[in-house]
């Protein structure tokens, strides 16, 4: 039959024309190729690690300065008590969303293209959540009292106030990090076992043996692994949606014009996935080139990521439009002032227009199949989107706080040197952790790629 009629056949034809794996070798060849990146790290790895490590030291210097002096060294003040700190928190945690989205959501939807990039994206999630977690801690001012957020019996005989969205945040971020870690590690165990069995040096076999937990790959163990992995995927899917919804509640349950909005949870989740996919592309495109993985991460992956960014970009754009329309339709003077005057024409107008250009106009280029499939073009688009998503959070926080109800309590915010240092420092820390991951962990899931190869061959065989 030449014209595909059923969905299954159409999918098969698509896979054939646009494969998710290009000419995989034997199982041993696939394993060795994917392990080689770790066993024989490329030459650029050491200098890259050194540079990002120095950046990480810079971050910790900035943290030490903040903690020892007090957060007065940041530009925050009343009325703008939240600025870079919360912007960075929301931005980083948003980036973290793509990892679990790719792993869990696409696992449930049985999207074959997810396999090559899922571990990559999950690791990115973990490291992004670590960066995100730093900011609320530092923003506490006295971070050594962070455990007051946890309900534990204490001599003060007080408890956290669970009607506050800030207490929800603690639960959401902590749960998200833990579940992402478990999901990532469970997927990793069989590959660590392959590493244990294949590494040439004794110390390396020993080291990976410990982290592989003695995995032996019996049929019974695999069955449990499959079930638990699918289960974690199923549980993590609503979790992804919940985390940024809760983060958005920090804003939405307040009464401030520009924050007090019902559209926030879906709008934040879409924005989070948008920036997360952009971050996956930002890291994946160079890694794919440097490690010569063009046949495992194929143009089909780039294409799918580009489409995801286009879709989520449109959801975000639509949310902006709805917000502005709601503000106007409400007839409420403060809302109207924030949305129609302060943001597009106020002192932070350049932030607003950066957001519009980066988040609403950039993704339109992704309509073009050629751009979606060009690594360089897609990478540039992803960078713009990341800048745009960061600016969006800044705009949201700063413009609403700067000019709310009473003009007598208006004020402006400008970041200090320490603010910038912390932002740039976390980018270095993130990259440092990510490079460590590329250096020591099989970053393409080997067992799953072999399973995919087997599935594809079986399909091929069944249909001739």
């Amino acid at each position, binding site marked *: 039959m030449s014209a595909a009629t059923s969905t299954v056949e159409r999918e098969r034809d698509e896979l054939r024309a646009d494969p998710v794996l290009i000419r995989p070798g*034997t*199982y*041993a060849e696939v*394993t060795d190729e994917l392990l080689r990146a770790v066993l024989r790290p490329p030459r650029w790895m050491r200098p890259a690690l050194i540079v990002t490590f120095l950046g990480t030291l810079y971050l910790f210097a900035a943290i030490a300065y903040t903690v020892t002096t007090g957060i007065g060294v940041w530009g925050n003040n009343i009325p703008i008590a939240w600025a870079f700190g919360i912007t960075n928190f929301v931005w980083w945690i948003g980036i973290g969303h793509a990892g679990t989205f790719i792993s869990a959501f696409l696992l449930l939807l049985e999207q074959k293209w997810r396999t090559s990039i899922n571990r990559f994206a999950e690791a990115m999630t973990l490291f992004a959540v670590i960066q995100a977690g730093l900011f609320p801690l530092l923003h506490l001012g006295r971070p050594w009292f962070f455990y007051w957020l946890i*309900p534990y019996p204490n001599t003060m*005989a*007080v*408890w*956290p*106030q*669970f*009607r506050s969205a800030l*207490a*929800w945040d603690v*639960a*959401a971020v*902590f*749960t998200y990090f*833990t*579940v992402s870690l*478990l*999901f990532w590690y*469970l997927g990793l165990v*069989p590959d660590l*076992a*392959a590493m*244990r*069995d*294949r590494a040439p040096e004794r110390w390396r076999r020993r080291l990976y*043996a410990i982290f592989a*937990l*003695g*995995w*032996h*790959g*019996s*049929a*019974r*163990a*695999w*069955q*449990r*692994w*499959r*079930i*638990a992995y699918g*289960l*974690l995927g199923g*549980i*993590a899917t*609503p*979790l992804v949606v*919940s985390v940024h919804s*809760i983060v958005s*509640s920090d804003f939405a349950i307040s009464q401030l014009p520009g924050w007090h909005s019902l559209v926030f949870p879906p709008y934040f989740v879409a924005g989070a996935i948008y920036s997360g996919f952009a971050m996956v592309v930002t890291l994946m495109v160079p890694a794919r080139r440097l490690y010569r993985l063009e046949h495992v991460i194929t143009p089909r992956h780039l294409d799918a990521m580009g489409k995801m960014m286009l879709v989520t970009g449109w959801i975000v754009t639509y949310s902006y439009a709805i917000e502005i329309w709601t503000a106007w339709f409400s007839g409420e003077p403060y809302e109207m002032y924030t949305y129609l005057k302060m943001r597009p024409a106020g002192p932070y107008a350049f932030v607003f227009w950066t957001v519009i250009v980066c988040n609403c106009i950039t993704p339109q280029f992704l309509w073009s199949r050629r751009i979606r499939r060009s690594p360089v073009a897609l990478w540039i688009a992803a960078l713009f989107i990341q800048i745009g998503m960061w600016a969006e959070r800044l705009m949201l926080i700063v413009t609403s706080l700067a000019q709310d109800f009473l003009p007598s309590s208006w004020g402006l915010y400008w970041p200090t040197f320490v603010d910038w240092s912390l932002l740039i420092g976390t980018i270095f820390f993130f990259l440092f952790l990510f490079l460590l991951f590329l250096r020591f962990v099989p970053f393409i899931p080997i*067992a*799953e790629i*072999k*399973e995919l190869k*087997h599935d594809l061959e079986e399909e091929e065989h069944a249909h001739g």
Partner: protein
Amino acid sequence: MADVLIAELESPEGAVATARRVRELGYQRVEAYTPFPIADLDVALDIPRSKIPWLALVGGLTGCGLALLIQWWTNAWDYPLNVGGRPLGSYPAWVPIIFETTVLLSSFTAFAACLLASRLPRLVHPVFDLPGFERTSIDRFWIVIGDAFAADEDVRAEELATLRRELSRLGANVIQARLGEEVER
């Protein structure tokens, strides 16, 4: 110490066919070791479906109840705080944490159950000493027959011959080994 017979195969299809045949010949203690999950092996080896989903459900319900209880006890009972006349039992405001704790405990249960049911972590397992086992995480598929030598003495040789013949017919490389014995490395 136990003598076992190992059928080593190079393809997942071969492993499934072999496992099925070995079970048909009446062997009970059969285990497969493979580099990636093969769903068909569960059927071929009659492996019952794992109870992990039920455990995860119990974990989730525990988390749900615990979160509700903690929030109610701390905020409505032990330290009631009147915030603008809002009800002390603000159940809708507790939903996010109830949800998060449900997710946390159910995933933790699923993770722990998956490992513990497979008796992991256990860094040293007797099968690791079998010659060539390290390739089962790369590209070899093993069917290990634990009761190949368990038959009565008068029929053992005959049964073993049948088994070996069948395994060879299916393309397996047959290895005889002894479990639980220190092997020269």
